[in-house]
């Protein structure tokens, strides 16, 4: 992610070489500093790299939330899929978000408004399909939707549950032209 950088190496290699039969030599104590990645976009033309700059700008102005990272990944995936298909413009992006995925749709929409500018998704709509959380109690075998944030089984009151759905975060489809 833009703004997330490996910075300094401290206290490198204060221990002796260890002996492992499969190794013939030990590498340098510390790799030279790798060049920093200037953009989060891969396989995307330069005209689309403004997205990375926008992510950086947003991170400077506000606390980067989970949704900014996620929406940036979403945009990258959408743009690369649209370009692969030879599209000129993205009209709608359909996403599936589970309601216990930790993602908030309106936060994603907020960041999307910002990130889409100057990209092929400039006029695109972000459409959500929410998947409600479903749990199953391992003891009672009851399937249920949790009441609010409480995952306790409605029959036995315990937490011996497995999540059947609700953790999704998917790009379902794109409408393009």
């Amino acid at each position: 992610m833009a703004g997330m950088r490996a910075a300094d190496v401290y206290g490198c290699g204060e221990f002796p070489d260890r002996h492992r039969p499969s190794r013939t030599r030990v590498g340098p104590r510390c790799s030279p500093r790798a060049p920093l990645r200037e953009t989060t976009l891969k396989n995307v033309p330069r005209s689309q790299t403004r997205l990375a700059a926008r992510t950086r700008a947003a991170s400077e102005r506000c606390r980067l939330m989970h949704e900014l990272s996620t929406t940036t990944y979403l945009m990258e995936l959408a743009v690369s899929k649209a370009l692969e298909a030879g599209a000129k413009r993205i009209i709608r992006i359909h996403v599936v978000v589970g309601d216990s995925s930790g993602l908030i749709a309106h936060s994603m929409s907020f960041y999307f408004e910002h990130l889409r500018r100057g990209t092929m998704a400039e006029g695109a709509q972000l459409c959500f399909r929410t998947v409600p959380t479903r749990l199953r109690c391992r003891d009672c075998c009851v399937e249920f939707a949790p009441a609010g944030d409480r995952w306790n089984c409605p029959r036995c009151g315990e937490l011996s549950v497995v999540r059947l759905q609700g953790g999704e975060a998917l790009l379902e489809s794109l409408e393009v032209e």
Partner: protein
Amino acid sequence: MRELGVLEGILTENDRAARDNRRRLEQARVFTMNVMASPGAGKTSLIARAIEHLQPKLHIAVIEGDIASSIDADHLARMGVPTVQINTGGACHLEAQAVSEALARLPLERLDLLFLENVGNLVCPISFDLGETCKAMVSSVAEGDDKPQKYPAMFQAVDVVILNKIDLHGICPFERDAFLRAVGQLNPSAAIFELSCLTGAGVEAWTTWLEEQVSTGPAFRRTSGSGD
């Protein structure tokens, strides 16, 4: 206008970088533990205790994720372990690409154990696979016994739960049995350790277990990030 079916995880790119990290770490035979917790639960102290007990038997390094500052990295570096600081610039979690950059600066071929200290947060870090061998979570007595109820997805996503600050039993209201019962129900396969990084109580059991994991090879093989 036409429709393109995609049906891919939004975090596919992160997952790809995580797979690369995992391959590199497995090739170098480095046991990697992603340490997650809320701020102040004792992630850095737990890592420091492990270093104290396991060095020089094991060659240890740390990748330290913080929103800002290098306070924790400085602390661990003073213990003589290679430490790479990642300042997330505000982001509430570590991501695989940043870890990949950090791995390039570590002598992986000479390491046995690598800690990835995640940003203090009980929601976002579980969505981002980093390529770790094992996910650990630190919860502390001071935070209360209701953490499993409040963050069930986190408790289900990890391989080991460490309850820290047990020296505060009796000072902070904390129902130990209720906590352990909820963790056991949410995640029956998780290993659980109770300890105090401050007093050292229980630390040896944890570090002995960790040493066993490192020396017998990864008992945990992760292939995807979210645990779903």
